[in-house]
């Protein structure tokens, strides 16, 4: 039986593929999926890494294939591109809310900002108590995409999804 699938349906299925390191975000929320094309029932999904060394990319590729195959698509290829380079600007608003609820402060402002050295530090609100009285402990956190912060009011340390 020949069924006609639209690219939108594939996008909807991909919303169930979660990022392995931030499991509240789908690869669609994260902006890692750049394109979906269907030619003669073969699906090609184009993805881009958040960081060059992101160790989650292989798992994401495997999960995309497995999820689509479970939905009945047998011919699936995943292509990786580097340009345009991934940016936190592609995080959906829904994705940012999910991050906050999960305890990770979402990126503040746009990525295309000062690369001036020692630009003023951004005010990052604590995802636990919402206080702006926070301090960056390290530009580099538990994964490449996060910085480590501490809240001076509730004293909780937290991850900040930094602008890229």
């Amino acid at each position, binding site marked *: 039986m020949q069924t006609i699938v639209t690219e939108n349906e594939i996008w909807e299925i991909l919303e169930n593929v979660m990022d392995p390191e931030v499991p509240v975000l789908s690869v669609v929320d994260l902006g890692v999926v750049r394109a979906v094309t269907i030619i003669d029932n073969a699906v090609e999904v184009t993805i881009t*890494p958040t*960081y*060059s*060394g*992101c*160790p989650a990319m292989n798992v994401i590729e495997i999960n995309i294939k497995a999820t689509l195959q479970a939905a009945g698509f047998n011919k699936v290829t995943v292509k990786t*591109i*580097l*340009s*345009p*380079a*991934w*940016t936190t600007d592609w995080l959906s608003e829904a994705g940012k809310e999910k991050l906050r609820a999960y305890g990770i402060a979402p990126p503040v402002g746009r990525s295309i900002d000062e*690369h001036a*050295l*020692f630009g003023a530090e951004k005010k990052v609100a604590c995802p636990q108590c919402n206080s702006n009285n926070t301090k960056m*402990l*390290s*530009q*580099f*956190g*538990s994964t*490449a995409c996060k910085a*480590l912060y501490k809240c001076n009011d509730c004293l909780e340390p937290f991850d900040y999804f*930094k602008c*890229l």
Partner: protein
Amino acid sequence: MDIQKALFDYTLRLGDNALILGHRLSEWCGRGPILEQDIAMTNIALDLIGQARSLLQYAGEIEGKGRTEDDLAFLRDITAYRNVLLVEQPNEDFAFTIVRQFFYDNYSFHFYTALLQSTDETLAAIAEKSLKEVRYHLRYSSEWMIRLGDGTEESNQKMQKALNQMWMYNGELLTMNETDRVLLAAGIGVDLEALKPACEAKLAEILAAATLEMPTGTWMQKGGKEGKHSEHLGFILAEMQYLQRAHPGATW
């Protein structure tokens, strides 16, 4: 030298620079002076090894002999490595590591910015991706240059000593060889000479803020780009390649 051969050599060099420096930084894993810096250095190592993977993968494609990025990383001998001598220098102490990192980040920020204009689409794409990461690296190493240089008397002395001893490895980054000239003429490579004013200005700015003295030596060590390495690289490769040499094709 034909363009294809030069492009392979060039891409290999960029990949080897990132791979070897990434490996060096990874040696700090579990040994950082404090937890945050341990994590920072391993994060930077991961970025560099990711960049190396893209670059060596592309080098394998250019060569066209079916070698993968893993083959290039784990099965080449020392004279086939094209990295500059700076990145293979030992970590010594935190001061040495920071000075080495700052030299490399200052170069790679300006280099990748220029490489965005390459007519080679893959190199331009890798530059675009890497540059975003390098900005964070440069900020990190610059901040530590200043914090330690303008810190205590002891930290200042350690930084000045590291700066003086690493200085002779800073020149090779921006020294053109035949590969650079062939690819510059082809619109693919970067004019390294043209990057000098911006790199020197940044260096002067950071050293001034760090209250460190600019070294005055003019003799610069070179040879890495042509495969002439210090013995340090042999030890790195012995450790890095051991598993694939002892158990060829091992996977897990």
